[in-house]
Every structure is written in C-alpha cells, then in structure tokens.
C-alpha cells in the first residue's frame, strides 16, 4: 500500500468512526444542546485513545490530545447486558457453577484494573485491554508485558468474550475461568511467580477484605474464585445493537447508509466473508469459532526480509533504516506457527481463530500480530487472496473487488459498533485503578530496610 493510499484509508476510518460515535450519541440522547455538547466532549474519551494520532502521517498533523484528568467514569448496571443482551446477540452462555451476580461483577472489575496483581505492581489486565481502545491496545501491534518483555501476539478485544467457544488466537483455552491464569503467570505478561503468590497478595491487600467472602458464600480468594470473579465481569461486556443490528434485525431501514447495505451484500456475496464470519438468522457473532490459515502467519514465518524498514520519526518525517541497524538493537523474535503449536499437527500450521467483527472499528491494529493497521488494509489482504501457501484455507482466494467495493465492506464493518460501548467504557473508567500504596505488601515497607 502506498503512502497516499494508507493515508486515505486512515481518513476514511476516522470519518466513519466519528460517524458511528455520532450515531450512538444522537440515539442515546435527545436532550438540550448544552447537554449534547458535554456528551460529545465525554464521548471523545470513550471511543478511542485519548492520545489522538489520526493524521500523524502528514506534516500538518495537529494534536487533539484529550486530558487524563477529564477521563471521568460513570458506573453502569452491567448485569442488564447478561440478562438481556443487546439486539443481535443470542442468550449469554453462563456456566452453571458461576452465575453472574452483582458482587462478583464488581469484584471482578476491581481485579481487572488492579496493577498490583503482577510481580512488580505494574500490570493489570486493563493495561493490555484498555477500555477506550476497544478493550485492546490501539497503540502497539503486539503486546508488551512486565519488564517490557515481548509477546508475539496482538491483544484481542474483551467485548463479547462470553460467547467464545475457543479462547486465544490459537484456541488453546476453553473457559474464561481458566483463561485468566495464563496472563497472571506468563513471564511476558503479569509475570507472577505462582498461583499462591497472587492469592496471598490479594489476601494481603486491605481493600479486598471480605469482598470474596461476600461474593462467594464465605469462600475467600482461591485459584477458582479469582477466575470466577474476573469471568463474571468479562461476561457482562456484551456489545451489539449496532446500526447494523438495528437495520438487519430491528428492521430500521434508515439505521445504516446505502453504502453499508452494499457492503453487507458483498460481505455475504462476492467477498464471501460470511463463510467464516457467520451471520445467523436471528443473531450474529461474526465467527464460526474455527481456525483457518489466511497466509498472514505464513508470511511472517517464511517471508523474505527486506533490506530496509521505513520508520516514522515525526509527523510527515520518515527514514529508511538499514535492517542491519535494526538488528543490532533487536532481541530474538519469537516465531508464531499458530494452532500447530497446540496440536503439533502440520496441517494446523499458521491457523488462527476467526475473531468476531463486532466493534472491530475500535480494535486496530488487526490480525493475530497486529500487522494490518486499517480495515482497508485488511480488505486489500483478502482481495489479493491472502498469502498462498501449502496449507492455505480453500475459502481464501482472490476476490476481484473494486476499490469502491472494498470501501463498501469497510463501511459495513464500521457499522458494527455496539450502542452500549460508551456505557461499558464509562463504567470501566469508574473502576478504581489498583496501584501500590503504603498499606500494601512490599519489602520496602518494612520498618528497617537496611
């Protein structure tokens, strides 16, 4: 993709994204204009990084930086999104032994934003799954964990994880309750040395006193209850009732533009996206919960490396850096063979799970390694037929879409932002961020440190 193409794609994304936020606002609010204005101001914080970088490609880039002191939250009744999921979603699957309750959700939310639950008090779940960034991280391609250790994958969104049948990009986990222990213990995520370490730390932090007992009929923090609380919170983050849902399931003709309708036709027709990103008759999760090889992982593992890399230095300023120079400051990069790493089956090489496309406008950069920056780039990738390799999915082939058609499908994906995103993000802003205080356990708090 050339510079100008990429730039245009960015502008398109920005315009459409803003449009989506606008739609949500007007639909949620029909009060006085002063109120509308403050709502618009607030909304800027809810639908993207506060450090706004749109247009950074251009030398004329102007900051529109939002202020952290104005990132103000508002608690919401999250349970409604479980008992009565937004339009376009099926019933929320809830495990029999872990019903979602108010106490559990509020405890799980507290845990999710607690940076003390890592070896050095610097990492919460929310540091990688940032609420206003689609509960992912828009600012880096692949995750960085404790002590700056590299992860090889892009942090996925937490919206609608209640519906996941297989968890992680390679589908290696099966329940949310179990999943939480992977980031807690991974050396390149929260780096806790053991399960007991996490449990003991929670027990020693005064703010948690009694909270587990209240939520779990007298049971304190255990490997199980920590997983259950976090899952209960995550299970409430169900988001739909998007312009698409209102049009498609709600039969509101004017809920989306003509372009979105054309994009929908292409998605289910010429572009064959629905072969994997499924839309059912009465709901849509946009995933088949299966794993496929699109060739992107193959390219990263097997592709030929170039001599130079284009690096941006400032707005509109680039340099082509010699890759030898980059190598001199690079630690070894981990390879990623996808599903194969779970099954050891060579037919599973470079297979990744089909992600949902709900709220996809908010979750750039895209794919398991964050290597595609815009939805337009994703469209170009599919249009060229992915990257051919011996185990490429037979469902991936050149599509022959025109520029206009690709833009139409992008517009369709932009119409998938749920109406309750603002509510969920504002609620997340209201959650206390757990940072170490003098009352918490730390060797440096002992009386005589010498």
């Amino acid at each position, binding site marked *: 993709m050339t510079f100008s193409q990429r730039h245009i794609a960015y502008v398109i994304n920005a315009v459409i994204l803003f449009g989506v936020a606008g739609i949500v606002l007007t639909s949620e609010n029909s009060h006085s204009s002063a109120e509308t204005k403050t709502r618009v101001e607030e909304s800027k914080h809810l639908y993207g990084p506060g*450090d706004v970088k749109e247009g950074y490609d251009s030398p004329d880039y102007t900051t529109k*930086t*939002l202020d952290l002191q104005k990132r103000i939250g508002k608690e919401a009744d999250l349970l409604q999104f479980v008992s009565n999921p937004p339009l376009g979603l099926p019933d929320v699957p809830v495990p029999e032994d872990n019903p979602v309750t108010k106490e559990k959700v509020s405890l799980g939310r507290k845990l999710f934003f607690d940076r003390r639950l890592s070896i050095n008090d610097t990492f919460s779940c929310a*540091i990688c799954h940032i609420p206003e960034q689609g509960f992912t991280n828009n600012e880096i391609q692949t995750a960085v964990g404790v002590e700056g250790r590299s992860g090889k994958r892009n942090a996925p969104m937490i919206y609608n994880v209640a519906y996941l049948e297989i968890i992680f990009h390679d589908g290696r986990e099966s329940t949310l309750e179990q999943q939480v222990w992977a980031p807690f213990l991974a050396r390149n995520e929260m780096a806790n040395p053991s399960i007991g370490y996490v449990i003991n730390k929670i027990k020693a932090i005064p703010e948690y006193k009694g909270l587990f007992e209240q939520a779990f009929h007298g049971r304190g923090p255990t490997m199980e209850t920590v997983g259950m609380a976090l899952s209960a919170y995550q299970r409430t983050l169900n988001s739909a009732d998007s312009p698409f849902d209102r049009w498609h399931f709600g039969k509101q003709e004017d809920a989306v533009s003509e372009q979105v309708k054309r994009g929908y036709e292409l998605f289910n027709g010429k572009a064959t996206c629905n072969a994997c990103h499924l839309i059912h008759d009465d709901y849509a999760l946009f995933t088949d919960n299966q794993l496929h090889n699109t060739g992107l992982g193959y390219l990263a593992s097997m592709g030929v490396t170039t001599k130079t890399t284009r690096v941006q230095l*400032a707005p509109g300023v680039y340099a082509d850096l010699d890759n030898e120079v980059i190598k001199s400051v*690079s630690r070894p990069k981990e390879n990623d063979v996808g599903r194969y790493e779970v099954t050891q089956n060579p037919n599973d090489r470079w297979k990744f799970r089909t992600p949902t496309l709900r709220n996809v406008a908010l979750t750039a950069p895209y794919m398991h390694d964050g290597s595609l920056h815009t939805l337009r780039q994703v469209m170009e990738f599919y249009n060229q037929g992915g990257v051919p390799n011996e185990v490429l999915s037979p469902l991936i082939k050149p599509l022959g879409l025109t520029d206009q058609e690709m833009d139409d499908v992008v517009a369709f994906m932009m119409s998938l932002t749920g109406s309750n995103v603002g509510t969920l993000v504002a609620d997340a802003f209201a959650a206390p*961020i757990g940072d170490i205080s003098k009352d918490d356990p730390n060797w440096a708090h002992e009386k005589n440190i010498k």
Partner: protein
Amino acid sequence: MKKKAISKAKWMQSIITFTCVLFVSVVGFQSTAMADETCMSPYMAKIVGQEDYVYVWTLGVEGMGDGQDKLVTLSVNPEADTYGKIVNVLSVGGRNEAHHSGLTDDRRYLFAGGLDSNKIFIFDVHTNPGKPTLHKVITDFVEKTGGMVGPHTMYALPGRIMVTALSNNVDHGGRTGMAEFTNEGDFIAAHWNPTDEDLRGAEKVGNAADGYGYDIRALPRRNVMITSSFTGWSNYMMDFGQMLGDAEAMKRFGNTVVVWDLHTRKPKKVFEVPGAPLEIRCAWGSNNNYCFTTTALTSKIWLIYEDEAGEWQAKDVGEIGDPSKVPLPVDISITADDKGLWVQTFLDGKTRFFDISDPFAPKQTYEHEIGSQVNMISQSWDGKRAYFTSSLLGSWDKTGEADEQYFKLFTWNGKKLSHEFTVDFYELKLGRAHQMRFGAYSLYSQKPNSSGVMLSQTK
C-alpha cells in the same frame, strides 16, 4: 592504572571561584562552595574542586550477577589509593528500569528513579560519600500522583525535588506530568502537562500539545521552567528493534517543549519540537537566557530562548550527524562557559563537540568514538574531565558483542579527548551503566584520613 591529575592553573581556579561565588550570591545562597559538573540545578550545592566519587545508577541484567539494579560508587580522585576502582556496590532489589537520578539541593540525598517499577530510591550520600546507604524507598509514586508512571528526572528546587514522569497508569502511553516531593521524599503536589483538551492556561504555539514528558530544567533568574517530551511506557520498555518495526508505536513520541512559570508551576507556552526532544541544558552566563535540547529521532539541535521582547521562542538551529541515518542523539552536556555542547549519538557510539559560541549556529568541531554504543556524559565544571556510560534503556541497548557496558573517563584539552580508564560493567557482572552523579567529601566538610575513616574538618 593510576594516572596523574591534571594540575589546574591557579588563575583559572580563582576565575571560576569568582564567577561561582557571584552566581551563587545572585541566586541567594549562603554556601561558599563552587564548581560542579555542568548540567545540574543552579539551586544545588557545589563541589569544591576535584570530585571524589561518581555514583552510577546501574540496571540489573537478568541472569547476570545478582540480576538487580544497583548504585555503583567509583573512586575518581587521582589522589586516592582506590582511583579508578569501584569502592561500593549497593543492590536495591528488582529490575526497576533504573534511569535517571538527581541530588537534593543540599546534596545530602540522591533520588534515583525506576522507569518501570515507579520506585524512587533515596540514598544517603552525605554520611559517608564513599559508601552510600539506602535511606528510604518511595513505592507509591503512581498512587500519590494520581496516575503518573515512570519517574524520570529528579531535579533540585529549594528544599524540594521535582520529578518528571514519562507515562500514566491508564494506557501506558505518553500523557503525563510531574510531581514535587520534599527532600525527605514526602509528596507535595502533582502538575499534569498541558493538552489540547486542557491547556491549563498555556498558549499552544505550534501544532502540538501532546502532554508528553521527559526532562526538566529551571532558569531561576527568568522565573522559567522548561520540560521536554519522550514517549510512554509501552515504547520505552519495548524491544527497540520491535518498536522500530511497529508503525503504531512510532506515532507515539513527544513533539513538544513546554515553558512554565517557575513560581506558579503553570505552563505558559507549548512549542512544537518534532521528534522526541530529550535532555534540556540551560546556559549559565547571567545574560544567556537560553537552553538547548536535541531531538532523538529527527537528530536536531533546538534552541529555546528568550527574545529581545522578553518572549520565549523555540528554534531549530542545527543538525546532528546525518539525520537520515538516525544516529539517535541522547545525552548532551553544556560547558560551564556556554561555548560548547557535547552530544552523544547512541547508534554510532560517538560523542560530538559542538561550538555553540553563537547559540543560533552550532558547529560540530570534533567527534570521537567512545564505544560501540554510548549514552550519558558528565563533565567536571572546568570541562577537563568527561565521564561516559553506555546504557540507554534495558530493551534499547545493542545486543550481542555490541552490547558493551562501561564507565569511561576521558580528559579534554580543548582539542581532543584522551582516554584515562575504563571499568567494564559486564566483566564485573554489575549490569548496564546509566546515569552518573558526582560526590565529594568537600561538600560535607569531611576528608578521609589515611585509614579511610572520615574526620570532620573545619574550614
């Protein structure tokens, strides 16, 4: 290894004494001390003559030695038996991303920050300058400041330390601020940097008000404080090579310099200075109302100056090396006479001397390769000694053979640098050598006797 000290001409010394006493009296200090490395707060007590020790804030390396950060004390007085040797190693626990450190105005305590753990270690360097001890650890920097992450510059103000931050606890990005502590390490106040949404009364002069932070310097005689801007936690902790290949990450660098009102701590002007302006060094001359900064990514020298109308301005005044090759200028150091600026370029391991007699037209007049990589420099007030260390950031340093970690002393005769000694920090299993601060017995009216036990000395 022991080398002879460069004997100073008597008249030189008295000129320095005179200027410093003059200067000190201008800023209203009773101290009779003088002479110091050149990049410190003007509020700070000064070292008399030769420094005895250099404190090196050192990053622990996983799998090497005890694997944790440490304050390494080197003996650097040529008169001492221990000259050129490490005399003390104080491990502090954890790899905190040790980075910068700064002394209190009375120079009794050294504050040293961890960009990752957000801890600030306060060392007692006055009880025994040759054997610093850990006095206190601030663990609640993030909580106390309301969400600032990455304590960076520790800058002495009267009775206080101003700590700039690099990031925040919400998105680990670049929006941040700075916070004030007492010399005892008690939190006083937080000041968030100006952003578009809340400029806090400042004027946005260019296209940028990004709220990023990095260094701070004050010009008390102009009631001015100046801050620069780097990048957030996600970038400064990320593998350097990985970041260069991550187009999203590369958009997250600071492009601003802010001029503040020193007394009210209110921002006045936000300048657009693209490409990560890092260290700020202000001129010492009483009529030289300007400071320099260099941009790490775009390799430029910028002058932040007060014009004839009394307005502060920012101007691009020169290039460092070949900007298209991204030499990555890092630490800089101004000479005491405001005539020279040392600039280290990390990727080619060079130090470069710029003649800044005309601050609007810096000219490079000398360069020398210090090692395979170089970051920090500290020079003595008379400019004759320049100490260098190697580490930039734990995840940004070079890898393999090129990852040399050292402390080196060079002498400077105005024309060329001569190597005096090197201490290899990897050979000694210490880690990555980062920032240096000087210590001296003269500061505390102390002198070691022959057995190394300190005696009180009346002046």
